[in-house]
């Protein structure tokens, strides 16, 4: 077989199409970047480097900035000032505003009706498209792979490289396909798939790989579900997670502000349809996950691979590390997770803050009350999500149940804007990291999908959400 006829994977095709200078033993490839997403936390030092070296931004037209990490989720006070957590946070926001103005970069500013979390707004605007290379100084950039894009997180030095040259230096990673076989059970979602997958392959199972998620259960996912799954690829150690583009993808993109229009749309469709992996394309590693066996999942440790069905029991720790994690999390070995009392619930983050996530949570919370003493925070991923949710009354559902309805941002996912738990709190969170202290010093984080998190808020303890999704039986009892 000639090399030209060799079956190529989606990843191979994306890689090949963006190589400016091929990789050699001495040097990594120089890879062209179609879309560079920028936010306030990982960019200031990169802009400073540009200044130091007297360089301009090469392609402001391929760069999109937003504000999300340090921004408050509470509205401005009576004095008209936003309640920033610290002066430094406010300064960081100002700094990005200045940097974008100086370099001609489009910024979704604080008052922009399109502002939101970087990985939520890229797709919403139609900027995230199949076939693109996308980078951001943020590890969850893998989210955009849901569209059949090659998207990965980079460090701040590389942010500087991309600003100055629109390119990054990269060695081609190995490739892995993860096949989700069978159909998901009702009430099981993309977050549960992600957690089950990470539990199976480990928090470093994807290290060094670009992962393609495939199989019937992935094809059946909505775009929002696919984004949730690809978002979590990095929690398995993989910088890249992707799904082949199909009609679901095209339907999502069509008509969005920055999507190709008219003839350009037809041409794009033709290109995009050629992207999925060829039959027989080789992968360095193949993994199968039994999708039908997946239950609503939670994490019980301090690494995302410590995941198990919410309706199950805490495992008996086997290693020193597991014992330490169990001590920190205060799970009692071999006792049902249901015995764990919850203090806070966070529904939000680039993993689970889109409209379908909020609907899922609202379905559980509608007509029910958040358990006494529990703080539940619902934070939409973007202004667009906020408007859409409010248009269908989801904000009312949350508020009536006793939850808080906030302004868009990263919020308690990274807890650097002032939204955080208190030491010792058990927080059930729809975000992506259960690391020690991630949501505030001494906070114990349990990761879950939106329905599970909502059910935990109502029950006041860890529960499988199934009972709350089955009609009215358990409602307002």
């Amino acid at each position, binding site marked *: 077989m000639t090399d030209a006829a060799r079956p190529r994977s989606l990843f191979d095709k994306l890689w090949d199409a963006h190589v400016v200078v091929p990789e050699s033993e001495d040097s990594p490839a120089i890879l062209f970047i179609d879309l560079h997403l920028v936010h306030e936390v990982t960019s200031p030092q990169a802009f400073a480097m540009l200044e130091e070296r007297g360089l301009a931004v090469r392609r402001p037209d391929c760069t999109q900035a937003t504000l999300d990490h340090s921004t408050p989720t509470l509205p401005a006070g009576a004095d008209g000032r936003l309640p920033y957590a610290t002066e430094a946070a406010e300064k960081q926001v100002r700094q990005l505003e200045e940097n974008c103005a100086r370099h001609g970069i489009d910024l979704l500013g604080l008052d922009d009706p399109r502002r939101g979390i970087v990985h939520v707004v890229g797709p919403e605007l139609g900027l995230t498209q199949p076939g693109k290379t996308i980078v951001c100084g943020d590890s969850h950039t893998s989210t955009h792979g849901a569209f059949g894009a090659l998207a990965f997180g*980079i460090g701040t*030095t590389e942010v500087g490289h991309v600003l*100055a040259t629109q390119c990054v230096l990269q060695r081609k990673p190995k490739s892995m396909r993860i096949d989700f076989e069978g159909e998901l059970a009702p009430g099981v979602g993309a977050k549960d798939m992600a957690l089950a997958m990470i539990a199976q392959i480990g928090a*470093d199972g994807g290290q060094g790989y670009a992962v393609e998620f495939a199989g019937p259960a992935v094809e059946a996912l909505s775009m929002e579900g696919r984004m949730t799954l690809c978002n979590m690829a990095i929690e398995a150690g993989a910088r890249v997670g992707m799904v082949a583009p199909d009609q679901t993808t095209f339907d999502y993109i069509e008509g969005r502000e920055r999507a190709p229009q008219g003839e350009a749309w037809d041409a794009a469709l033709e290109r995009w349809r050629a992207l999925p992996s060829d039959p027989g394309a080789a992968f360095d590693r193949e993994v199968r996950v039994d999708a039908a066996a997946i239950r609503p999942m939670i994490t019980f440790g301090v*690494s995302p691979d410590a995941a198990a069905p919410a309706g199950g029991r805490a495992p008996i720790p086997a290693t020193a590390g597991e014992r330490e994690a169990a001590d920190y999390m205060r799970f009692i070995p071999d006792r049902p997770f249901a015995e764990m009392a919850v203090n806070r619930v966070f529904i939000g983050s680039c993993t689970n803050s889109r409209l379908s996530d909020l609907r899922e949570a609202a379905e559980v919370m509608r007509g029910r009350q958040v358990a006494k003493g529990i703080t539940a925070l619902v934070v939409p991923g973007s202004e667009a999500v906020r408007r859409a949710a409010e248009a269908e009354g989801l904000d009312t559902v949350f508020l009536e149940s006793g939850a808080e309805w906030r302004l868009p941002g990263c919020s308690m996912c990274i807890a650097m804007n002032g939204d955080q738990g208190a030491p010792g709190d058990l927080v059930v969170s729809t975000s992506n*990291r259960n690391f020690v202290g991630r949501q505030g010093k001494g906070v114990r984080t349990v990761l879950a999908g939106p329905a599970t998190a909502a059910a935990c808020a109502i029950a006041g303890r860890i529960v499988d959400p199934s009972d709350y999704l089955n009609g009215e039986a358990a409602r307002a009892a």
Partner: protein
Amino acid sequence: MQPEPFTRLEAYSLVLPQSNIDTDQIIPARFLTTTSREGLGKGAFYDWRYTGDDVPKNATPFPVEGAGERKILVAGANFGCGSSREHAPWALLDYGFRAVISSDIADIFKSNALKNGLLPVEIDRTTHAKLMEQPGIRIVIDLERCLIETEHGLRAEFAVEPFARRCLLDGVDPLGHILAQESAIAAFEDAR
């Protein structure tokens, strides 16, 4: 800003045997609101070093004043997993570390560390396990030969991405390397 060249490092080890030490441990998010990269050493492993309110913990392997001669961090598997924050290597360097040894180091952290002159050293599990049992020993890291040796005769080879190695040994500037390909980049853009 170019990192300091790195050829050979002789220093003592500080051991953190935990696996999956993530970037939120290395530098908690509340230290990320900075717009510079100076002074992050204060936040390095902050919650491991302080009880809060800047009161140093008693039971911590970390010297209060900085790494001193213990410039080599030996840590459990999957070190540096989590976020892409380059603040993590900045903080470790500012605290005084120059190298991290583990059996495997997370991709983005590794790439960030190399760009800043913090050498990520991945070695075989057996030697790694032995190093973890001997905190405070003297270790020589030789980047020319890609070899580590301890005062007790342990030896292990390690691999470093060749370009990053050249950058560290010879002071090659990665951005300069890309900028030198300006005509190729322009041609690529024109061809689309």
